[in-house]
């Protein structure tokens, strides 16, 4: 039957397509502990987390011995390309078919929000690290989501108030047009106004924009004192470069609301000296951090960012909890993690509170001048430490329904 051959061909194609989709499929969670990380591997945020973040997780697994209670620990990684749909679909597939026990969300707030929802639906543990939006622990808080490293409120409270205190009263925001940028601008606006400053205007740019010139012109014509950069990664680097090119830095001061050591490294101290920034960790802040960072440097040939250190910390704490509980059951492990203080290279006396925030110290830092810097990557001086709860949303301000 000729047409049956046709049917066979169709069937074969579909079977092949199906096999493709399940080639490494259906490994149950029983005999392996699987940690998954979905982050930006190749785009504008790939330096601050990316493949190096995966390495940090591998270091954590190795430092915990590679097995917990006899079960091997593995990590799987995927690139979400900063697209929430890619992240959510991958997360769902991993929970359904790959036996992933714990999901780590790398950079990008949009993807973190979408993965948080999938984790809630599947009742699995999700640790958001690089995604900054405070919505993760406010309007969209979830019993299965822990926000580990920092959020837009902490960043705003740190840099925002420091800059206003230093005299920068009128602000103009250059904002990345998605969840993160909008939230950061909102939180920073609140802080600036509370400190007695004003927000003169703002402009939104598409994520990963190639040319900032026209946005910067708009900023300049606003005559504000401070240009607040409510963006991150490659966008921040390009904004600062363009601001220098167009002479904006002569009439306005730049305030990078979210900056990482990789950005400073990329731009150089000449362009960034004197800038304030708020971060959760610095490789050179104490002896323990230095030791760990040198190990990281040997592998990756650069110093770790705070996100990569947080990847390490979250994995260690998770595996410790799994060891104590004796299983990977998300509810039990979460309960254990919420009972235990976080004490590792990343945080001292940190703890997970009711809205999912991992409360720990935040640091206000200033970028050194070239003269002050004594070695490569020696870029910051710590100006102020916000201890524990000081840095974060207070219970009164919180919009999380779970934490009342």
């Amino acid at each position, binding site marked *: 039957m000729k047409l049956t051959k046709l049917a066979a061909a169709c069937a074969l194609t579909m079977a092949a397509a199906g096999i493709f989709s399940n080639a490494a499929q259906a490994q149950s969670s029983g005999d392996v502990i699987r940690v998954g990380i979905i982050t930006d591997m*190749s*785009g*504008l945020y*790939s*330096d601050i987390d990316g493949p190096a973040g995966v390495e940090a997780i591998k270091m954590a697994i190795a430092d915990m011995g590679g097995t917990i209670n006899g079960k091997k620990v593995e990590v799987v990684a995927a690139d979400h*390309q900063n697209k929430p749909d890619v992240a959510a679909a991958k997360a769902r597939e991993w929970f359904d078919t790959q036996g992933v026990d714990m999901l780590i969300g790398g950079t990008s707030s949009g993807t973190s929000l979408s993965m948080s929802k999938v984790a809630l639906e599947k009742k699995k543990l999700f640790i958001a690290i690089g995604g900054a939006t405070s919505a993760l622990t406010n309007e969209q808080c979830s019993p299965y989501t822990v926000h580990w490293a920092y959020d837009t409120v902490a960043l705003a409270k740190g840099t925002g108030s420091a800059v206003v205190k230093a005299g920068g009263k009128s602000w103009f925001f250059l904002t990345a047009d998605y969840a993160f940028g909008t939230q950061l601008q909102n939180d920073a606006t609140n802080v600036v106004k509370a400190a007695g400053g004003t927000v003169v205007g703002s*402009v*939104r740019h598409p994520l*990963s924009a*190639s*040319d900032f*010139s*026209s*946005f910067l*012109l*708009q900023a*300049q*014509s606003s005559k504000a004192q401070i240009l607040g950069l409510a963006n991150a*990664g*490659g966008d921040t680097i*390009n904004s600062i470069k363009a601001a220098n*090119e*167009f*002479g904006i830095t002569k009439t306005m001061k730049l305030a990078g609301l979210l900056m990482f050591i990789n950005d400073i490294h990329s731009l150089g101290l000449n362009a960034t000296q004197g800038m304030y920034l708020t971060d959760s960790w610095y490789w050179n802040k104490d002896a323990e951090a230095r030791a760990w960072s040198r190990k990281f440097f040997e592998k990756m040939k650069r110093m770790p960012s705070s996100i990569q250190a947080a990847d390490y910390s979250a994995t260690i704490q998770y595996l410790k909890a799994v060891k104590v509980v004796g299983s990977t059951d998300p509810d039990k492990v979460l309960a254990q993690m919420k009972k235990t203080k976080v004490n590792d290279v990343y945080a001292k006396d940190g703890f997970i509170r009711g809205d999912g925030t991992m409360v720990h110290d935040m640091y206000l830092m200033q970028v050194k001048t070239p003269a002050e810097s004594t070695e490569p990557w020696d870029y910051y001086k710590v100006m102020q430490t916000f201890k524990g709860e000081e840095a974060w949303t207070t219970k009164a301000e919180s919009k999380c329904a779970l934490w009342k």
Partner: protein
Amino acid sequence: MSEIFGIPIQAFLGQLLLGLVNGSFYAMLSLGLAVIFGLLGIVNFAHGALYMIGAYVAWFSLERFGLNYWVALVLSPLAVGCLGVVIEKAFLKHLYKLDPLYGLLLTFGLALIAEGVFRDQFGVSGQQYPVPELLQGATNLGFMVLPNYRAWVVFACLSVCFGTWFLIEKTSLGATLRASTENPTLVQAFGINVPLMVTLTYAGGAALAAIAGVLAAPVIQITPLMGSNLIIVVFAVVVIGGMGSILGSIITGVVLGLLEGLTKVFYPEASSIVVFVIMVIVLMVRPAGLFGKEK
């Protein structure tokens, strides 16, 4: 400080000037597209990729061989032109008898291949390319500070555009080219190597894209996506100008840049669709585009 339409005149002029810079790029890119479509009937979706490759050639020759910007301005179009020859001989040759939309689909596929290969090699975050020393610094024009390099871009683009237009419309080489593509058999009978003319035309279009890429390199990040971000807009420019008309695409490109600049003053987000709105309106009123000839 006076105001115009409620906006400070400084901001207005500043955005217009930036718009002129963008418009020069549009003109330059749409020029290559118009040449290829006007003379060959191929809708060259790979144009954005060729532009991107042109920029990467410049970057690579600097990184690896230390060849500076001015060398790259010559080297890149030559290299990409050769690539164009290969593409034409290997792929496009088979498509001339078919519906032009197949050419579109094929070049679309080629663009995807190029983008994928470069993405794999370089990631998406982009490479930096320094502004050549001669053109560094900026001039304070009063209403804004204009980096000198951008002024050069306007000058270079418009020179190349009008040079090409002159070549094609006013010289005998151009006449031969136009004749070869309008009536190949007749021209072949005169002893002119028509296939060679055709290949050179495509290579020429590709070279134009590469020059645009080198010019763009110091301004924007060199990323594998830089072509696909622009290609749709450039297509629209060519369609508005009239798909066979070279002068049409040059003028439309510049005007569009200015209009986008204007839009950025009043309603910045809409600047990306200005071109499409115009395109629909133009196609309704003048189906063959502003300067096009109905075929």
